[in-house]
């Protein structure tokens, strides 16, 4: 599938394939509508940032992308979301397979109350991805290495993951999601519970991960969006107001509301 939708001036970006595509996505919590007709393309090997004031629907949209909203009883999703051109709601792609391909990192670091090793090995084990201990060891090591945590924890893989610092815990959660080798990683404000140094570390990591994965990140911080993303979507009151290249959104937005938000007039 070739890029359609927004005009893109940067040829490097224009070449990127569309990995996921939302078409007229609307979300309802009971009677209340949280999202209105969102159309958004997510390009491969690109960091897409979703920004907007609190309660604007950006996290709700993110959770649609791997059907995490299924967990919430009263939540109803309309419209179509495609992953590599295939509707993620088709019966042949159940949530187990979908979530193995589209992983998620949450706002608060949430390591399992298990050892560091078992935290990372959890995904590969439940999906039966490895045969034998040595292969699993290797997956754990590569995942921790990619998450930039290996050097810090290689001597204490048997210790509980909950004993790490907040920033380390979040990197452990990232290692845990890349251990199942997903194609897309969704990050829901991954740095909001972290201090500036840990945040910088994670942001660096996100940039490195881009070469192997497609990343969608929800963030409150416009500076963070500007630092880590190539494309940015601005949500306001349940609508996707504007989406485009990050430098264009932050320097020359088309919409007045985007202009107001990024210049700090509200939000």
């Amino acid at each position: 599938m070739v890029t359609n939708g927004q005009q893109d001036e940067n040829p490097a970006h224009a070449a990127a394939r569309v990995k996921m595509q939302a078409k007229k996505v609307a979300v309802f919590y009971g009677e209340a509508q949280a999202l209105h007709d969102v159309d958004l393309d997510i390009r491969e090997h690109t960091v897409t940032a979703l920004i907007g004031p609190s309660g604007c629907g950006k996290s709700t949209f993110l959770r649609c992308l791997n059907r995490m909203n299924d967990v919430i009883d009263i939540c109803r999703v309309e419209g179509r979301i495609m992953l590599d051109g295939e509707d993620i709601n088709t019966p042949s792609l159940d949530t187990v397979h979908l979530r193995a391909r589209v992983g998620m990192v949450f706002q608060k670091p949430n390591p399992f109350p298990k050892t560091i090793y078992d935290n990372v090995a959890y995904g590969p084990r439940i999906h039966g991805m490895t045969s034998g201990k040595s292969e699993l060891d290797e997956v754990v090591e590569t995942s921790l290495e990619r998450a930039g945590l290996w050097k810090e924890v290689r001597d204490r893989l048997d210790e509980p993951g909950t004993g790490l610092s907040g920033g380390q815990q979040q990197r452990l959660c990232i290692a845990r999601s890349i251990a199942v080798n997903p194609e897309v990683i969704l990050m829901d404000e991954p740095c909001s519970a972290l201090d500036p140094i840990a945040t910088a570390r994670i942001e660096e990591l996100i940039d490195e991960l881009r070469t192997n994965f497609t990343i969608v990140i929800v963030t409150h911080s416009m500076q963070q969006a500007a630092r880590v993303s190539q494309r940015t979507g601005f949500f306001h009151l349940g609508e996707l107001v504007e989406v485009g290249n990050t430098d264009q959104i932050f320097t020359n937005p088309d919409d007045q509301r985007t202009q107001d938000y990024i210049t700090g007039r509200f939000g």
Partner: protein
Amino acid sequence: MHSLILAATVLLLALFGYALGRSRSRNLAVASGQPLHSLPTYYGGYVAIWCGLPAVLVMAVWLGAEGAIVRALTVQSLPAALVSDDPDRMALLLTDIRNLAAGSIVSRDVDPALQAAADHYQSLRQTGFASMVVVVLACAMAGLVWARRRVVPGLRARNHVERIILWVLVACSTIAILTTIGIVLSLIFETLRFFEKVPLHEFLFGLHWSPQTAIRSDQVGASGAFGAIPLFAGTLLITLIAMLVAGPIGLMSAIYMAEYAGSRLRSTAKPILEVLAGIPTVVYGFFAALTVAPFVRQSGGSIGLDVASESALAAGVVMGIMIIPFVSSLSDDVINAVPQSLRDASYGLGATQSETIRQVILPAALPGIVGAFMLAISRAIGETMIVVMAAGLAANLTANPLEAVTTVTVQIVTLLVGDQEFDSAKTLAAFALGLMLFVVTLGLNLLALSVVRKYRERYD
């Protein structure tokens, strides 16, 4: 009865003191223009406490001491002919005097000397009560007047009242603790008396239990056997059966309730399950004895097994049903307490619901679940009514659930039911068994606590 009227009077006085203190503090504040240190209600409370508390304390002490003083005075006034050196005889005599004074049946001929003693006793009691009324009321009035006079706007009434409330609370918790200590001590002393008659090792390691002791030496079964191993084994067997029933059913229903059931189903099903805990154990007892035991016996018979009509199986199964809510309700709470973020993390990795439960939720909830199981076990060990009705009395040492066994609690009941002399090894054995039971359940509870703590360190 008269003491109750006196107590009510003191209470009324205290209420009056409350109203008095409150209004006086208000009036004084208005009159002097000074602000009150505390709210008017605290001044009321201050006066009420000074009026009521000393009076009630005096009354309690008086009631406690009066009996002994009156008895001593009565004994002093007795004619020499009635006095004897044997304390038991004197106690008997005093009982008679008391009964005579109260107009009850007396166990000996009433002679004039005894009648005179009874009259004397009666007059002493009356004088005593009258003086108590005077002293207590005087106390209350004095407290009232004194405290009322002390009420001035600068009095730190709130601090006084709060401190007294603190002491009342301390006193209440002390009573609870002292009662527990008292029960344990009485168990220990009676148990020591038992071990004077039966050696400790025989009780702990003996394989034969037959507590019938003879009153005369020529009776059959003159020497009782007090080996408690069959009782411990029976208790363990029934507890094991109960946990085999309650453990899986309780845990799985808790998982269903917490993870799968919709909120409407949970809000109806959970209370219904908890009704099980509200059924009186005696009802479970006859359900076990009249329904389950015959059913077990018949079904065993139909496949060629010889089942005792009071089998351990029947009692254990019914006990297991009884403790299902203990396991399920507590486990449900701890499973619900596992943070949603852990579930999200697991689902986000593509785990199914059952994988999430088995590998994330149950390990995280383990300390609470272990605690629930321990609580259920100590409940099962201490349970009495079901086993009294359904488990039988034969102290068989067996691991076969189809045979009749007996438990520690059943034996305590049978040892103490009916007319008993309280110095024979047979009755004292009940205290030894009770102490064992107490030690085991206490140990289980401590173990449960330490397990919970250990895992909490690991999982938080």
